[in-house]
């Protein structure tokens, strides 16, 4: 009796399925392959690639701080977009970022191995983003791509990751990197180190009282004067987050501007040993370090390693953090070249002490206001507050290899404040430039944090 009932049930199910199969368009939902999600893997692929990216940033010609932040931004986005098809609770950022409407999507019926996807995507993007790096560094990219699966056996288990899955995963990762790169090339900042390829006249700095002019000792031409026109990732335009108005220019000794310049003059001349250390620690010079954005990316990378984060968290973190820092540079540069505030060294020499130059470091070759380091450090700290929690104490190991660390901070904000003020101690920024930059950075971070990552 029971068997007959089963047979009837069986027949009913069979006939239902057959009926479905015979409709003109099959009622087949996308098949979800039960492959492990990115959250099931360690963040090793991400952290290893960002370790290398910071080295490439330091050692590749032309990677000034804005250029470096841009490269890290695209790498962060590429990492996220390469694995987000495997994160059912998350959504792609295509449609939320400027001029990026859609990206390729993984085929629902093809199992992918997300560490392999991420590895291929990051390798491909690194090659394209640092295309002018040395042959040695290009070999490093190749080596890392090849060695990661061997180094992290727990994430690349050959018993479960078949050659077929590896091939599919690599091709999807490369495809994603190429799609992101097609977008990157049109942002106005692509290959900024190359010959001038844009239809624009050479930049002529405006003249007038209080306007920036090239600074001693090298009187170098202004760096990337059009960077404020680079398409941001998230801000609709650089001017969405303007720096607050700077102090009105004045050479009157009673004026706020004079007092601010005088503060730079006095503080930098009388800086304590600790303040001098701060200044040098946060200098983050290109060519010698991975630049300011690389510094914060290092901090994030270190924390992800320490906390044994998974690949999904790492991807989301690097996307948020790095895009925020890149947009911070665009917004900051937009304000810098719109306002064209002269540097303290110029003001002090004109008004206070004609022989003074900052003793700790040369003044960077672009207008003062706002302090770029302050903008992007503020943005970075706000994002990391969100990811790891406010008041997260951490140890910064960025400069250990250079003999300047480790250094402990009680919070990201504390580190950002120190980074900002270090520019005052160094004699290269006014206090109002530091404070204005922090306001601008907060605005940028708020807009990046408003992106929708979750369904």
């Amino acid at each position, binding site marked *: 009796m*029971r*068997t007959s009932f*089963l*047979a009837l*049930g*069986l027949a009913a*199910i*069979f006939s239902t*399925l*057959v009926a479905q*199969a*015979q*409709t*003109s*368009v*099959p009622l*087949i939902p*996308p*098949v979800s392959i039960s492959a492990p999600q990115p959250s099931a893997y360690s963040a090793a692929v991400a952290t290893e690639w960002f370790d290398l990216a910071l080295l490439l940033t330091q050692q590749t010609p032309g990677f000034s701080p804005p250029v470096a932040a841009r490269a890290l931004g695209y790498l962060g986005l590429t990492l996220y977009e390469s694995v987000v098809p495997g994160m059912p609770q998350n959504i792609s950022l*295509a*449609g939320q970022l*400027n*001029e*990026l*409407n*859609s*990206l*390729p999507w993984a*085929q*629902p*019926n093809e199992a992918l191995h997300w560490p392999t996807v991420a590895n291929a995507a990051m390798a*491909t993007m690194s090659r394209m983003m640092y295309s002018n790096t040395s042959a040695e560094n290009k070999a490093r990219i190749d080596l890392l791509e090849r060695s990661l699966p061997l180094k992290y056996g727990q994430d690349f288990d050959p018993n479960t990751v078949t050659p077929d899955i590896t*091939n*599919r995963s*690599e*091709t999807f990762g*490369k*495809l994603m990197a*190429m*799609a992101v790169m*097609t*977008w990157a*090339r*049109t942002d106005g900042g*692509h*290959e900024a180190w190359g010959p001038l*390829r*844009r239809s624009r006249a050479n930049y002529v700095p405006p003249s007038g009282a209080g306007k920036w002019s090239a600074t001693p000792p090298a009187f170098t031409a202004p760096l990337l004067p059009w960077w404020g026109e680079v398409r941001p990732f998230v801000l609709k335009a650089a001017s969405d987050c303007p720096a607050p108005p700077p102090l009105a220019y004045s050479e009157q000794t009673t004026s706020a501007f004079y007092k601010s310049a005088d503060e730079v003059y006095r503080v930098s001349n009388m800086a304590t040993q600790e303040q001098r250390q701060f200044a040098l620690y946060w200098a983050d010079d290109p060519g010698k370090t991975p630049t300011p954005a690389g510094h914060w990316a290092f901090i994030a990378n270190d924390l992800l390693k320490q906390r044994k984060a998974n690949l999904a968290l790492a991807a989301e973190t690097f996307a948020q953090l790095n895009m925020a820092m890149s947009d911070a540079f665009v917004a900051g540069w937009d304000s810098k070249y719109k306002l064209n505030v002269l540097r303290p060294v110029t003001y002090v020499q004109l008004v206070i002490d004609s022989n003074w130059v900052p003793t700790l470091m040369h003044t960077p070759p672009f207008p003062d206001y706002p302090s770029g380091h302050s903008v992007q450090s503020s943005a970075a700290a706000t994002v990391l507050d969100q990811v790891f929690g406010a008041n997260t104490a951490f140890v910064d190991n960025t400069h250990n290899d250079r003999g300047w660390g480790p250094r402990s901070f009680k919070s990201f904000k504390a580190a950002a404040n120190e980074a900002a003020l270090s520019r005052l101690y160094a004699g290269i920024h006014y206090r109002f430039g530091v404070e204005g930059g922090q306001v601008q950075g907060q605005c940028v971070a708020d807009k990046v944090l408003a992106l929708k990552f979750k369904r």
Partner: protein
Amino acid sequence: MTHNKFHSFRRGVLACLGLVIAMDAARAQQPLMAPIPPIPRFVEETEAAGLQSRFEGEDEYMVGGGVATFDCAGNGLPSVYVTAGVNKAKFYRNRSTRGGPIKLLEERSGLELTNAIGAYPIDIDGDGITDMVVLRVGEVQVFRGLGSCKFERANDAWTVQTGNAWHTAFSATWERGQSWPTPAFGTYYDRSRPDFPWGSCTPGLLFRPAASGTGYAPPTPLVPSHCALSMLFSDWNRSGEASLRVSNDREYYKNGQEQLWHVAPGQAPALYSPAEGWKPLQIWGMGIASHDLDGDGFPSVFLTSMADNKLQKVAAGAKQPTYSDEAFRRGITAHRPYVGGDIHPSTAWHAQFADVNNDGLTDLFVVKGNVSTMPDFATLDPNNLLLQQTDGHFFEAGQQSGVASFKRGRGGMMVDLNGDGLLDMLVVNRWDKAQLWRNLGAGTAKEPVPLGHWLQVRMAQADGNRDAVGSWVEVDLGEPSSRVIRQELTVGGGHASGHLGWMHFGLGALTEARQVRLRVQWPHGEWSAWQSVTADAFYVMDKERGIGPWKAP
């Protein structure tokens, strides 16, 4: 429950579960429940037919590679015009024997050109003789057909001056009340910016007939343009008015996307907007194929790309151009090679819906090939022949049918070159010879046998739009399938390749009488009455004279 009954029950449950799992697994992959469609056999006849053409050229010739097929000899057999990049584009008169091997004879026609990358036949001046539009790296050249497969340049006579841009796409429609077509041309990136091409896409052009009644008024730039590689005027919502679909290459545009333009008589072209239901999509757009795949009356659109091919179905009815992507659901993603061992993503160019096995279900032909030597994309990238199954899925038959070429494909055409009712295949390959395959159906080279019944129809009407471009032709298959299939007669789309002439319908199995009914919605709205025709024959459907059989001379 006794021990035996328990085991009986458990076996039943397991069997039931097993069946469900097996059915799900079957559906998850290629659906096994739909029978494999009849697979046609093709034999390559490139050399034997006398086709000798190589599409050559470096950077500016990475796209394009078109072929045009049209009957200029009046023998009912499409002749062939093959572009060849920096090489000379050639015209071949079709000297095939009906049902026999394909024979093409190169002949001087006036269409001999260098820098030609695409070609579309169209009767521009409405004299009943097919003219030709040739897309070039440099100015577009339009040719007036003189009859007997001779052509003369007509840019000056028709005032078609496109300038010296990189012309990569074409389509045309006859707007209501016009006797001359409205052609649209797509362009690629700025030829003067090869060192930094990104973001330098140049404007397309829309020409409208001159008020004088001959030739064209100065063109209207299509702004914004986003490096178009295919364009198609199609009546996407059956309003009686064609809109211009443009597929754009994300590789070079800044803030670009796929586009759909309103082209309303007397009005400037205007993009469909998100407010109207248009959803932005960014792909490496290279080719457009359009067909009413599911019988809802609206054309679905297949867009080729680099591993990111889309099948867009009208999802919100006639009022909104909102599309859903059906590529995965239909098994039509075609995103990587299916044979040859290359695991990299595919690069797809020409696409065309056509019933290659005459089973009454439209199939999809996609030409594939690496852009040049891009290492991250497949080098061994075979063309696809995706046969539609009874359940709406598509079955890849490129290898079994013998057309899985690994050359760098670009343009192509499925067209009946020897008048036997079976669609043959032409493919243009970059840095390589063009190829030609003859469709043998279920037969042999000596005796082709169609896999199903077929019908070929040519539209005709008086004055102006003589070929009735913009018509919708419906064929009621009657018993046993009880389906109505339909095609829109368009000029444009594919990848740089066009056909004008016979519209081919596969009819599948029919009753012994081989009767089907046919009707036409003429451009801009009027329906003809249903007409009975006998399968496996050619007909001319004339708006004034009605339908009549066509006999080969």
